[in-house]
């Protein structure tokens, strides 16, 4: 049974219907029912109402939480995808220095936005991505390659720096996946 369609109105309708049904039963058999039958009838009604309420409330909360998690996970995956794309283009010497500076700033904003939402809505504090982002920015923009080629059209990074960046990209992948698992299981 798909409970996602249960809402406040359907619950009220169900309760109202049950009360009317009980009323009809009482009217029709009321004078023939003994005390234990009344208790059993009331017990059944109360159980049905409780089960309906619990199902509706918990299902709604679960569904809301799942949707929120899926949304934040999607954002994390998009940021991860952008990192990989950026690094691939960087390694192929396709990026301009000004683009790189702007990219790091904007990506920093996106990471802060995710950190804030994780902390506020899910109680998850995870600083690894922020730290890796900061380290990545310093590693690249403090490098000899970056500064010496600043006046050229595209950044050309030396092999040593390329290898370091590729090595660090593994840490990024681990951190992003780790964060996604944390969100799913929080």
């Amino acid at each position, binding site marked *: 049974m798909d409970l996602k369609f249960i809402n406040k109105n359907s619950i009220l309708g169900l309760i109202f219907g049950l009360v009317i049904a009980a009323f009809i039963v009482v009217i029709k058999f009321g004078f023939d029912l003994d005390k234990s039958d009344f208790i059993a009838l009331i017990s059944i009604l109360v159980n049905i109402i409780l089960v309906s309420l619990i199902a509706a409330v918990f299902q709604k909360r679960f569904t809301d939480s799942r949707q929120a998690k899926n949304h934040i996970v999607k954002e994390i995956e998009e940021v991860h995808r952008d990192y990989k794309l950026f690094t691939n283009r960087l390694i192929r010497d396709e990026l301009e*220095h*000004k683009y790189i*500076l*702007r*990219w*790091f*700033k904007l990506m*920093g*904003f996106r990471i802060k936005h995710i950190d804030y939402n994780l902390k506020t809505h899910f109680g998850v504090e995870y600083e690894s991505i922020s730290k890796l982002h*900061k380290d990545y*920015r*310093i590693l690249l*923009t*403090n490098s000899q390659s*970056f*500064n*010496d080629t*600043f*006046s050229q059209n595209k950044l050309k990074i030396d092999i040593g720096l390329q290898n370091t960046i590729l090595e660090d990209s593994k840490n990024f992948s681990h951190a992003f996946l780790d964060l996604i698992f944390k969100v799913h299981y929080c």
Partner: protein
Amino acid sequence: MIDLIIFKIKDHTEYPGPRYTKQGVFSGEWFYKKHIKDLIDKCLSIGKTLTIDLDGTAGYAASFIDELFGNIVYDFGLDVFKKTIIITSNEEPEWIDLVNDEVVKDWQIKKEKGAPKKPE
């Protein structure tokens, strides 16, 4: 002390440059020599602070930040740096942390060792 001068990087360029002047325009070295050094002298002579605002640009290279603020520590000393310079950034406060946690210490050590400001 009350602020006398607020220096905004964005008033001079949207795209701050590399570390040294020889590497490109609007470098950290250029900003220091062209603007900041004289402003600090002025602030010291009249007992005021200098606020350097980092917001509003496209973003910074770590080398730019290092060269700009490191030179202040090297030339004027840590005490003057702490008493005279205020760095502000609502957009990227992590640069302030970088300066206070790493740049200041590194350049103070460089100064104490008598190492040159720039590699020969």
